[in-house]
Each structure stands twice: as structure tokens, then as C-alpha cells.
């Protein structure tokens, strides 16, 4: 055998290349039209995909806004309401309403119908002539109370059929449970519909048996109720056995259908089912930058002193100047205190309680910060320093006396100096526990909402001055400090998440953390106005579902 490849390119190759490499052939006229159509279809499908994404994003944003707005409205609407109560006394013309109107107005919508045995027994043939439970109820209502006084009672009873015609919660649940799953083939759909029709037949039989029993009670009187119930039960059993036997025969006659169902069930395991195969456990890390409001004001007593100062003679002593500065310092503190950048980092473990409900617990670190500008310093002038002030001897920020219990201004010297920054920092170890509910938005997207409580253990609190000549204060965990050592908070969060490859998912959403108590250890005896602190931030988390190796293998 000779191989052309074993030698150099010959004349044949050159001839073919020269003749064919740059040669041209005209394609058919409609080829561009086909390409154009293909491009158009491709673009429109991409556009649709983008539209779906944007719609989902918009829906998620709206949901987030609604949740955040609801949470905010709830939080801010808890202010005490001193306004007058709305009048509940009916208007004068209400007395002129007829008794029937009043009865209708006062009756709840789901008041059960009042069927007197006499009224029902009066027209047994009408009741039994009715073919279904719906017409049966109407007939009973219509014949309940003949006569002139029936107008009122007719209205009262007529409310009942509406309630009785609606599907009962249990039967509605059954219907929902057998709603047809999407993505089935024709054979599987036929099988499913057959099973559904059998179930509906069973339900109809049950209703019919119950109706027969009820008719029998009415006809036979209350003394023979157990006998009638047994007879209805036996009838129902017989009929249901017939239906089940017929279903069994159909199943045996069509084994291929069942096999197809099984095959489809095996092949068409959705992502959701695959997710359900995973372990209940998950771990995650979260980072939440937030906005912290410490809700601690300046001492109120200073204001009183300022008012007193204005009534005094104009000869300004050192104490008077100090009091005036204290007042100005308070105003400056109130005006310039702003929430600072705060954050929380948490490691959480999740345990699925149900398909969508998850119990979360973890451990985290919180750093909450507030800041202000100050142009005044305070320094104790006497030896009898109140609690919280014995930690400093050098000039300090005006914030500190706010935390003290005693008449601070009498024992303080306040001086003015160039403006400097002050930062108030609280570091907590947090132990959160909560519940999270998840719902699917698409195949990979989901929303979540969660709430819980957290124990926040104060590790360190600091009042840090940017000026070198103004003392900074720091209280460690074991040191006595004016701040509460353990604070409980309620946490609420909601957002959207995306499932990534493998078992990873990421979530993003707003988080609100509201503390149940103030920052101060002894709020009753401090001069500062104070409230409950809170943080509002964004929670970003990465979660990993354990035991999902089956899917990747």
C-alpha cells in the first residue's frame, strides 16, 4: 500500500487547491432569508429570557419593598395613640332599620343555617327529590319557614347555601393535592386523569352516602340514627369496593401505563425533587452592613440649668459659664450625632423542619457604631463622681455625663475647644436563633423571609475621641460600665436568593434588628433621654447544603 501522506504534496493536491480554494459558488436566493429568520428567532428568544429575568427581578424588588415598607410601618406605628376612639355607637337612623336588616347586618357571613326538624320534615319529598347537595341545600332553605314571618328567616337561612355550596376545606385540599403535575407525557397524563376521576367518583359516592344517611335520619327520626349511619356506611363501602375493583382491573389491563409512569417518574425528577433528596442540614455565612441608631440623647438636666441660667443676673461666674457650655454641648450632641457604619458577621447552621421551613442557629459578631462632633470637654470638679464617671480623670466628651445617675452638671467643669470627632462603638457576640421560610420564584431563584431572636453579649464598648487631649474610654466585658451586658434583639429579614452550581446558594435582602431594651444598664436613673436601639441593613449570605453529594456524583 502506498501512502500519499508519506511523500510531499504532489501535483494533484496543488491542482485541486489552485482550482478550488478561492473558487466561488452562488448560494440560493432564499438562504439569507433563512439566516435572517433564524437570527430573528434567536434574538426574540434572548429577549424573552431577558424579559423573564427582569420581570422576576421587578417582582422580587416589589416584594422586598412591600416587606420593608410593612416592617417599617409596623415599627413606626407602635407610637402611643392618644387620640379619641372611633365612635361605635350606631347612627340615629340605624334604629329605623327593619329587624331583618339588623339580623343580616349582625350575622357573620358563615353563620350555619338554622334548619328546624319540623321544617325539614314538612317537605321530605322535596328534599329527597333534589339530585345533588347543592340543590338540596337551596330547597331546604327555601322551604324552611313558609309564612309571613319567613322574610327575615329566609334571608338568614339564605346566607347558608353560599357557604355550603363552596368546597369544604378538606375537599379543597384533596383537589389541590391531586392537581395535575406539569411536564407529563400523554400516557402519564391519561393515567393521572384516570386516577383523578376515580378519586372524584369516590368523593361523590361519599357525599351521596352522607346525603342518603341524612335523608334517612330525617325520615326515621332521631331514635334510629345509629342504624341509618350503619346502613349508609355499608352502602358506601360496597360502592367504594366496586370502584376500587374496577380500578384494579384497569391497572392490571394496562401495566404499560404504570411502567410508563414509573419510567417518567424516574427520568423526570425535577430539580425540586433532587433538592428534597438532600440532607436537612446546611451551613452558611452572612455579612450584614447596617445603619445603627443607638438612641441615647444628651442629659436633660442641662436644659433645665440653661433655663435657670437665663433668669439669673448677667454676672457670669465660672459655674454659670460651665452650665451654659453644658447646654450648648447638649444641643451640639443632639444635632451632630449620626448613626455610623455598623456590620455583623454570622455563621449559621440550618435545619429543615419542612420543605420550606428552616430553623437557623448560629454565632456571630456585631459591631455597632455611632458618631458625633463635639466642641466641648467635661472634667469632674469634685471628688464625689457619680457612677460611670470614675473611669476618667482627664477631659472627656459630654456624652459621658449623660450616662451618669447623679447631678452631673454640679460636679462638672465644661470647657470649649476646637471641634473633634467622637465615635461610640459597641461590640457584641451574638447568638441568633430563628426560622426562615423559603419559596421558589423560578428554577434557581427563590425568596425567603425570616424572623428570630438573638442574645447579644456586650464584649466591649468604647467612646473614642479623635482629639489627643480628650480622653477616650473603653469598657471591656468584665469591667463595670454604664452599658447593658446582655441585650436581646428581634431580627427580621427577607430577600431573594439564587441557587448556584452544586449545593451553594446566595441570598440578599434587607434585615432589621430591633433591640428589646436600651443600651444603658440602668436606664431608670440616667439623665440621658434614651430609647431602644435598632439597626437596618442588608444581609448577604452564602449557604451550603450538606449531604448533596448524590446530585453531583
Amino acid at each position, binding site marked *: 500500500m502506498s501512502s500519499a501522506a508519506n511523500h510531499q504534496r504532489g501535483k494533484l493536491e496543488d491542482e485541486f*487547491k489552485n482550482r*478550488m480554494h478561492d473558487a466561488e459558488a452562488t448560494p440560493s436566493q432564499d438562504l439569507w432569508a433563512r439566516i435572517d429568520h433564524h437570527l430573528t428567532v434567536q434574538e426574540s428568544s434572548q429577549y424573552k429570557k431577558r424579559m423573564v429575568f427582569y420581570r422576576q427581578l421587578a417582582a422580587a424588588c416589589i416584594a422586598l419593598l412591600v416587606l420593608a415598607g410593612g416592617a417599617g410601618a409596623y415599627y413606626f406605628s407602635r407610637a402611643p395613640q392618644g387620640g379619641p376612639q372611633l365612635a361605635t355607637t350606631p347612627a340615629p337612623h340605624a334604629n329605623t332599620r327593619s329587624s331583618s336588616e339588623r339580623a343580616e347586618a349582625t350575622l357573620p357571613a358563615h353563620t350555619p343555617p338554622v334548619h328546624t326538624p319540623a321544617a325539614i320534615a314538612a317537605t321530605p319529598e322535596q328534599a329527597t327529590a333534589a339530585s345533588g347537595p347543592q340543590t338540596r341545600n337551596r330547597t331546604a332553605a327555601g322551604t324552611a319557614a313558609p309564612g309571613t314571618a319567613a322574610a327575615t328567616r329566609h334571608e338568614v337561612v339564605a346566607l347558608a347555601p353560599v357557604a355550603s355550596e363552596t368546597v369544604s376545606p378538606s375537599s379543597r385540599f384533596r383537589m389541590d393535592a391531586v392537581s395535575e403535575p406539569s411536564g407529563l407525557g400523554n400516557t402519564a397524563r391519561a393515567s393521572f386523569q384516570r386516577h383523578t376521576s376515580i378519586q372524584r367518583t369516590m368523593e361523590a359516592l361519599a357525599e351521596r352516602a352522607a346525603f342518603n344517611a341524612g335523608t334517612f335520619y330525617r325520615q326515621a327520626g332521631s331514635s334510629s340514627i345509629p342504624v341509618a349511619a350503619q346502613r349508609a356506611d355499608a352502602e358506601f363501602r360496597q360502592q367504594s369496593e366496586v370502584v376500587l375493583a374496577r380500578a384494579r382491573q384497569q391497572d392490571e389491563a394496562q401495566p404499560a401505563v404504570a411502567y410508563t409512569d414509573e419510567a417518567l417518574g424516574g427520568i423526570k425528577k425535577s430539580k425540586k425533587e433532587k433538592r428534597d433528596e438532600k440532607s436537612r442540614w446546611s451551613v452558611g455565612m452572612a455579612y450584614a452592613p447596617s445603619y445603627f441608631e443607638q438612641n441615647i440623647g444628651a442629659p436633660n438636666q442641662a436644659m433645665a440649668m440653661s433655663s435657670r441660667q437665663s433668669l439669673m443676673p448677667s454676672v457670669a461666674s465660672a459655674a454659670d459659664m460651665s452650665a451654659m457650655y453644658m447646654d450648648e454641648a447638649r444641643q451640639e450632641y443632639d444635632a451632630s450625632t449620626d448613626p455610623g457604619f455598623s456590620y455583623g458577621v454570622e455563621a449559621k447552621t440550618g435545619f429543615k423542619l419542612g420543605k420550606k421551613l428552616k430553623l437557623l442557629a448560629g454565632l456571630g459578631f456585631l459591631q455597632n457604631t455611632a458618631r458625633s462632633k463635639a466642641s466641648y470637654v467635661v472634667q469632674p470638679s469634685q471628688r464625689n463622681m457619680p457612677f460611670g464617671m470614675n473611669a476618667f480623670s482627664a477631659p472627656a466628651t459630654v456624652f459621658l455625663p449623660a450616662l451618669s445617675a447623679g447631678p452631673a452638671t454640679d460636679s462638672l467643669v465644661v470647657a470649649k475647644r476646637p471641634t473633634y470627632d467622637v465615635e461610640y462603638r459597641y461590640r457584641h457576640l451574638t447568638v441568633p436563633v430563628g426560622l426562615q421560610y423559603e419559596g421558589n420564584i423560578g428554577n434557581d431563584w427563590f425568596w425567603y423571609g425570616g424572623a428570630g431572636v438573638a442574645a447579644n453579649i456586650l464584649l466591649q464598648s468604647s467612646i473614642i475621641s479623635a482629639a489627643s487631649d480628650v480622653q477616650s474610654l473603653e469598657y471591656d466585658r468584665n469591667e463595670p460600665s454604664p452599658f447593658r451586658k446582655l441585650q436581646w434583639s428581634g431580627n427580621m429579614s427577607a430577600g431573594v436568593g439564587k441557587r448556584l452550581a452544586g449545593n451553594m446558594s446566595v441570598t440578599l435582602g434587607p434585615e432589621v434588628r430591633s433591640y428589646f431594651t436600651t443600651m444603658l444598664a440602668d436606664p431608670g436613673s440616667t439623665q440621658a433621654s434614651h430609647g431602644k436601639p435598632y439597626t437596618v441593613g442588608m444581609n448577604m449570605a452564602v449557604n451550603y447544603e450538606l449531604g448533596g453529594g448524590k446530585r453531583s456524583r
Partner: protein
Amino acid sequence: MNLFTKPKSEEDKLIAGCIAGKREMQRLLYDQFSKKMMLVCLRYAPTTFEAEDIMQDAFVKVFANIGKFKRDCPLEFWVRKIMVNTALKHLRGKQLLTVSHEAEEVSNIAADGFSLTGYTLDELLRMVQSLAPRYRMVFNLYAIEGYNHKEIGEMLDISEGTSKSQYSRARVILQQMITRQENNYKDHVISS
């Protein structure tokens, strides 16, 4: 006029327009290369119908991926490469490139003293199209596109030796065709 920026060539404008998804620019690019690429597709496909299918898929790929064109080679070369790859994929999808183990008698007709000048392009194209798919592929890639057997082996997922062997057979078949046609021509001329 900005003296510090290089003026855009027509090809750059064409590429930019195609990246932006402008249909008129896509049409211009199609018009520029469609005739040459049609012949490329015809060489790889057994029929005109299949060649147009390949060309349609290939041009859709060109427009979808033109943003990835790095300008490190002529645009025509890049488009041609997409045509060839699409043709290979098309035929691989039909499983026409599987290597058969049929024994074929290969005789050496090593005479290089012939010329193709008497043949029209259609006749040559018909000869190439009449080759079995696997021979046609290797012949096109080696003789006309200029790939070596190692590259062809990687492209077709076969060994270098298989590529050489298949090319050798393709070459022999073509030589036989040419010889047969020449003999027919001579017989026809002599008899007439």
C-alpha cells in the same frame, strides 16, 4: 479629526456593526463571504441542500460569536474556519465520520503527470462530493485547506496514521476517477 486614533477600516466597521446586531451590517458580511463559503460548504457536503444547511448554521454562529474575533487573522480565514468546523460537526452528527474497517483495495497510481485544466469546477466538485464522507473530509482538510495530518487527527478525533491512510485512499480514488474519465474521453474521441 483626531490624529491620535487610528481610523477605522471598513472591516472594523463591519465587525462593529455585526457585534451591535445591525442586520444591514450582517447582510453586508454575508454578501462579502457567501460565495466563497458556499463552495467551501459544497466541498464538505454531499448535496447542495446540505451545504446550504451547513452554511446557514455557520453564519448564525459567525454572527453570534463575532464579538470573540480577536483580529489575529484575516476575517475570511476566521469565517472559513467556522464553516469547516460546522461542516465537521454536521457530518459527525450524522455519524458519517466513523471509521469503517472495510478492506479496500488501494493500488498505487502515482502518475503525477496529469493536469486538471480540462475539467470544469463543477466536475471537480462532483468528484470530491462523490468521495465517502470520511475521505472527503480528510482530502479537503489536507489538500485544500492545508492542515497537516496531526491537526486533522485532532479535528476528526482520529489518529494521525488513520488520517494519512484515509487521505491516501481518497487520493487513489480521485486518481482513478480522473483516469477513468480520461479513458472515456479518449474512447469517445476515437470512436467519433
